[in-house]
């Protein structure tokens, strides 16, 4: 787990301007996130909708500009590096999106979509080399090479997501940012795609930032988990540590809310765990305090910082743990 660290993110801040009821607001989507990713490691990012997990992923691939912070890839600083830095970032950090229907051009043959990034960077010397690379990539994701000449409408949802993965791994990146890559798939197809991603992780020594709201999926594929709430990481540790022994009250609520596929483990009675506050009216102090059963006076004024707690590299941002 402690292998070579290839990606380091420090104090990343991302905000958007928004207008509501005639007033301008600044919405802080990512509020000071730091993380690191080792070679071949899968870091799961989990949280409710609106917690900033997607924005974090999009910033890492250069689709969103951060307000401040550093992204360091294998010793190279990517923020403010200009054209060459962006180019490097876009070839070595690649994204797999949630909805393959929305991310594939319906009028483009599958092979052309898969080779798009490589074409732009001009790495192919000949047409034959290009076709061979496309065929090899399609085979690697479990598709027949003849799919190169087909169009997205001819494919099923699971096959389209395989294409989405294929276009992320040609040319071979060091890091994949996967944003809810299996959420739109049926459970039987979801298992096939998860198996594929685990195979690729092992074969290509890929590191992944695996963003999902589904703790079951995260538990399957990632070795470490970071839990996000209102733009901040509130707990981070090894996957089993987080899922089996959550410490932060928010992580505990998330884990408790997973519908367990066992009728003998039913959640009894009415559960009240509140809803996330609006991003426009961010609470002072700890953002989770209004929903937190353990909140004390200090939580309402003082923002808890991440600190190390116990073993397994666990960090947690809570005053009361």
């Amino acid at each position, binding site marked *: 787990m402690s292998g070579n660290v290839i990606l380091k993110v420090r104090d990343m801040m991302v905000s958007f301007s928004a207008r509501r009821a005639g007033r301008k607001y600044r919405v802080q989507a990512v509020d000071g996130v730091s993380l690191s990713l080792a070679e071949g490691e899968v870091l799961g990012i989990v949280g*409710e*909708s609106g917690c900033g997990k997607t924005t974090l992923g999009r910033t890492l691939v250069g689709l969103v500009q951060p307000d401040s912070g550093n992204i360091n890839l294998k010793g190279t600083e990517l923020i403010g590096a200009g054209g060459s830095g962006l180019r490097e970032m876009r070839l070595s950090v690649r994204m797999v999106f949630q909805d393959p229907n929305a991310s594939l051009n319906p009028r483009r043959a599958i092979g052309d979509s898969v080779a798009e990034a490589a074409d732009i960077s001009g790495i192919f010397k000949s047409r034959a080399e290009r076709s061979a690379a496309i065929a090899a990539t399609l085979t690697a994701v479990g598709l027949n090479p003849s799919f190169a000449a087909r169009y997205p409408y001819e494919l*099923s*949802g*699971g096959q389209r997501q395989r294409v989405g993965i294929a276009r992320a791994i040609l040319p071979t990146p060091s890091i994949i940012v996967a944003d809810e890559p299996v959420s739109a798939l*049926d*459970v*039987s*197809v*979801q*298992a*096939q795609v*998860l*198996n594929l991603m*685990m195979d690729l992780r092992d074969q290509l020594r890929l590191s992944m930032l695996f963003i999902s*709201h*589904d*703790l*079951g*999926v995260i*538990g*399957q594929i990632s070795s470490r988990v970071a839990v996000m709430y209102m733009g901040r990481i509130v707990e981070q540790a090894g996957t*089993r540590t987080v*899922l089996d022994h959550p410490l932060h009250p928010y992580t505990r*609520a*998330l884990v*408790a*809310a*997973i*519908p*367990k*596929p*066992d*009728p*003998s*483990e*039913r*959640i009894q*009675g*009415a*559960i*009240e*765990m509140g*809803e*996330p506050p609006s991003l426009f009216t961010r609470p002072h102090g700890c953002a989770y305090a209004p929903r937190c059963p353990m909140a004390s006076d200090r939580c309402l004024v003082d923002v808890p910082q991440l600190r190390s707690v116990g073993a397994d590299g666990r960090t947690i941002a809570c005053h009361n743990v």
Partner: protein
Amino acid sequence: MLTVCDLTVSVGPETSPVDIVAGVSFGLAKGEILGLVGESGCGKSMTSLAVMGLLPQPGPRVRAGRVLLEGCDVTQLQPWQRVEAGHGRMAMIFQEPMTSLNPVRRIGDQIAEAVRVHEGISGAAALVRARELLELVRMPDPKMQLSAYPHQLSGGQRQRVMIAIALACRPQVLVADEPTTALDVTIQVQILGLLRELCNRLDMAILFITHDMGVIAQLADRVAVMYAGRIVETASVGALFGAPRHHYTRGLMDCMPSRNSGARRLPTISGQPPLPGTVAAGCVFALRCAAVRDECRVAPPPRLEASQGHEVLCAFPLAGGGLP
């Protein structure tokens, strides 16, 4: 309370119809929650729309079978005809509440509208009832929220409004089509708890449609598993999760990540569900079944009673020994 017999929903020309729901039968008792589970395209939503009389027109139609509400056949009645005939005590909630709510009308007016239709009372009295309904669905600050617009509410609150509107007709049967799929798990657990509570308090039956086996295990009393337009297994929730008898049900459970924590690879069901109309003779699951035999490809499978109340549509069902 509600009985569905041999319901068949078809698309395409009368001369060569394609059945997207093929001979579905189930019953729903008072105060019972029946979970209808299956993957996309299996016909579970079409079944629910046919039960409600809400199939889009023109489009799919009920070609055969009956839907009986307290013994009365309502299959061919439009929703308003059902209300006029006194069989209006069914309601439905959907996956995405924002598309079901009118964005430019206040929440209170939208609930009161449903109350007026069903109870024939005045506007002011209907608003009072609307507020009671919001309290019933545990909406925070119900008096204030009457004058809110849908965009001012969160996803979970909007789904509570949809449930309040559904409750306006004092339903005997509530059909819920993936009502928590678009919600975060922390909100989902609260809505599921609310539905369970309402079911007990109002003695209302719920037909709960979902693709999520975890949700089924948490909520349902009985489960019907659908595949390619057919119900392939029906059982009490305990029997189904304890010892599934159909190979498809077993496959669905095996490939859930949360049942496999720590496993190196997930078991999968190979292939894809068949497209409607492409199923030849024999069992619809034969193409993907790991335990397929020659007979399965020739003759349609029988519906066997594995044990009391546990039916399975398979010629060679799994033994009832339970999951390892």
